[in-house]
């Protein structure tokens, strides 16, 4: 068997994470391959969302937390003291569980990040809006109502808008925290299709409660339990012939 040198964009090395005295993650070592979809699964409270939020330093916003170990993004430890979390978040976008567009117009939702990044040229911004909305297949639905409030869109449309808003920032990685758990099956299918097309240009790391979803869309799957990474393998292997008995028990529905 030939080993191909894989291109890992994010690597975690022995990461521990504490909420106060509570240890939410212990000794997580994982490599996330570039332009692939990696799914994080496991029962509620297993630490999968916590890990996701560590990858773009969103947990910084919670008081009384502490990280140990290293998280390397393109070989640079993002928790090093000289790293600006704002810069990390510009390169690593995030989509949340509940669609959270700003109470602004659809247009201004998309232009939020580019304007912060200092893009002022209106032609460039307009092109970016169109491009981002086309990437999430929302353009045809909203091109005539760009000035309307994003709050008037349906839940599924709002979530696609949130993805477009993250894409407008031109990130390298997109983190998704159960992006379809608040959506109906049709909207879910649209988002899943979207993830499949987005992985050509982006690395996607997705937390999901839905094991079928992980099986459908991801190349790699990590199974978490009680703050530990139990198994991390190719998705096909995890769902057909996992190495660890515990994983098999979870996937076949024996617990969780």
């Amino acid at each position, binding site marked *: 068997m030939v080993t191909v040198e894989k291109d890992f964009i994010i690597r975690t090395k022995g990461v521990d994470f504490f909420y106060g005295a509570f240890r939410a993650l212990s000794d997580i070592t994982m490599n996330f391959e570039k332009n692939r979809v990696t799914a994080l699964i496991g029962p509620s409270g297993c630490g999968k969302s916590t890990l996701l939020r560590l990858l*773009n330093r969103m947990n910084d916003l919670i008081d009384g937390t502490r990280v140990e170990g290293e998280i390397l993004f393109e070989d640079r430890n993002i928790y090093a003291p000289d790293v600006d979390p*704002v810069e990390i978040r510009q390169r690593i976008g995030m989509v949340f569980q509940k669609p*959270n567009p700003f109470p602004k117009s659809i247009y201004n939702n998309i232009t939020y990040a580019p304007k*912060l*990044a200092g893009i002022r040229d209106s032609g460039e911004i307009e092109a970016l809006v169109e491009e981002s909305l086309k990437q999430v297949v929302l353009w045809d639905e909203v091109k005539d109502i760009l000035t309307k409030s994003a709050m008037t869109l349906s839940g599924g449309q709002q979530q696609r808008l949130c993805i477009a808003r993250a894409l407008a920032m031109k990130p390298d990685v997109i983190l998704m925290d159960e992006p379809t758990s*608040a959506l109906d099956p049709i909207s879910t299918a649209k988002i899943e299709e979207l993830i499949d097309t987005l992985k050509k240009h982006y690395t996607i790391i997705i937390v999901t409660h839905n094991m079928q979803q992980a099986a459908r869309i991801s190349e790699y799957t990590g199974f978490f339990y009680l703050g530990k990474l139990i198994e991390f393998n190719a998705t096909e292997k995890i769902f057909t012939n996992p190495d660890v008995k515990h994983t098999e028990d979870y996937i076949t529905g024996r617990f969780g």
Partner: protein
Amino acid sequence: MKNRKHSLTKRVKEIAIRNLFGFFAFLSVLLLGLILVFLFREGIPLFKQISVADFLFGTAWYPTYEPPEYGIWPLIVGSLAVTFFACLIAVPLGILSAVYIAEIAPAGIKEILKSIIELLAGLPSVVLGFFGMVIVGPWLQETFDLPTGLNIVNAAVMLAIMAIPTISSISEDALYAVPREFKEASYALGATRYETIIRVIIPAALSGISTAVILGMARAIGETMVVLMVAGGAAAIPESIFDAVRPMTASIAAEMGEAPFRSGHYHALFATGIVLFMITLAFNLIADYISNRFRETGSGTL
């Protein structure tokens, strides 16, 4: 049978309780209604002597002269002037302190600041009036070489101190009500804390903040004791911010005691009360309209 009787008494009780609560709820409405009736009954007769336009826009307030003149335009201007300058001070201070308390301050400082601002709200207005008369007034007079330190600036500063807690605490509630999801979304898009505050949190809370400002204005324009003590009491249209004025509330409070019962002067003061009531009513309606509009187009719906 027994069971049915039981449920019958229960029903009677329910109805009785409902009516009791209803009665107390409507009692305040009833009281307001009675006060209004009284206010209008005592105020309206003035307009047999003088037209509404002459009353509102007349520039001479000589209620005890013969013949008396009941033009309250100087009083209206006085009220509006002190309120306007009070807001100029209180709005930025109130909003900025609310932003600091809600979004920036560490937990310890937040608690201290909050209780101090609440204390400010509890300060008796007469104490504030004393402070204005004894400390601020003489200081203004000396520093700016004025004939009197009791003027628009003094009153505006004192009223601002009274309006700040209202503006600050209501704005603070509005800022807290901004869903956490918006903040997270902003941070995740690479915004800094201050970019998030300015571009997301304040705009999302803007209707609540506007309500706070208008209620603060209503508080300032209705305030009596402070302006009675420090506004100077001159019933003339001011030409500079260092002129003394006589706001409507001060005029009513000062003159009611000496106005003969049901004389023209007496009716004129009640009519002034009607004008004041209309202004605060308008402020409240505007505040209500803004906060309602916010609710409809509101936040985070799925």
